[in-house]
């Protein structure tokens, strides 16, 4: 196991970067969706990826879930995979928020679309602050209602060392949906992120 612990300062710095990224993402989304997006302080947590299946099994024990994955990569060795996890009942009606006619778009496409929008606007907001530019792979549904979430997470945790769990709760006027965002990051990229955080901390 690699040493993946963040110092208190690094953690605070990352939390602040994420807050600002969330703010920018929400502002863009609000303009795009033409509604007010209620913003909550996102709660972040760094966990060993092996612990992921257990953590999410608790959260999503009783319900069907949908899991959308999207890879990202940028400069200075920053890369990873973003996972968005929705409870099934939250996955309905997204077409309406997105401004599509329900007939124009399948349920799978609704999920990949909203996931891609949330992931890319949020990560772009993060990248801007650290003078980085990210590119993304196409979003893919890796699990839907009938497949056990744990199985997928076990597979994923095999490939990744560390998970940055960001609880995002998006609420828009007249409609609310919640989803969890998990950023899976390999050990070597964590080291690169720590270097970036230290650089910012040095400036202040």
């Amino acid at each position, binding site marked *: 196991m690699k040493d993946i612990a963040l110092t208190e*300062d690094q953690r*605070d*710095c990352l*939390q*602040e970067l994420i*807050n*600002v990224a*969330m*703010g*920018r993402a*929400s*502002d863009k989304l*609000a303009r795009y969706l033409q509604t*007010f*997006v209620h*913003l*909550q*302080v996102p709660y972040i947590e760094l966990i060993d990826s092996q612990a992921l299946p257990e953590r999410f099994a608790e959260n999503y024990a009783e319900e069907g879930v949908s899991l959308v994955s999207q890879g990202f990569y940028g400069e200075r060795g920053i890369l990873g995979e973003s996972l968005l996890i929705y409870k099934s009942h939250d996955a309905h009606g997204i077409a309406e928020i997105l401004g599509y006619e329900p007939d124009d778009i399948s349920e799978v496409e609704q999920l990949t679309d909203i996931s891609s929008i949330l992931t890319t606007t949020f990560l772009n907001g993060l990248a801007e*602050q650290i003078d980085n530019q990210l590119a993304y792979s196409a979003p893919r549904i890796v699990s839907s209602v009938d497949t056990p979430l744990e199985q997928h997470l076990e597979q994923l945790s095999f490939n990744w060392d560390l998970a940055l769990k960001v609880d995002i709760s998006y609420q828009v006027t007249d409609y609310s949906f919640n989803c969890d965002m998990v950023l899976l990051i390999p050990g070597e990229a964590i080291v690169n992120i720590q270097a970036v955080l230290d650089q*910012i*901390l040095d400036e*202040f």
Partner: protein
Amino acid sequence: MSIPVLICDDSALARKQVKKSLPAEWDVEVQFATNGKEALDILRNQQIGVTFLDLTMPEIDGVAVLEANHAEKLVDFIIVVSADIQPEMQKRVIELGALAFIQKPVNTTKLKEILQQYGLL
């Protein structure tokens, strides 16, 4: 005489960022608060010239501080420094008596303009 300035944010980095963005020529004495409760304690018991206030904080958030300040008529100059930059939120804090709204991370030039506009600098 130095102007007493309060910077309220739950993030240490954000507090430092705000402090560092204050114009060098501005003669101030800076105090920090790490949440809304601490901020209200200071505002109620001390003479504070200018307050820089974050909005999204755990427990007592910036909006609640603005509401209390408005009700208790504590101080005149509160500048909101926030990550939540949606127009509706900006409108709301101005209605609650905030002097201005600055998006995070703080841009010194923008801050200077605001301070000059209100004769604080």
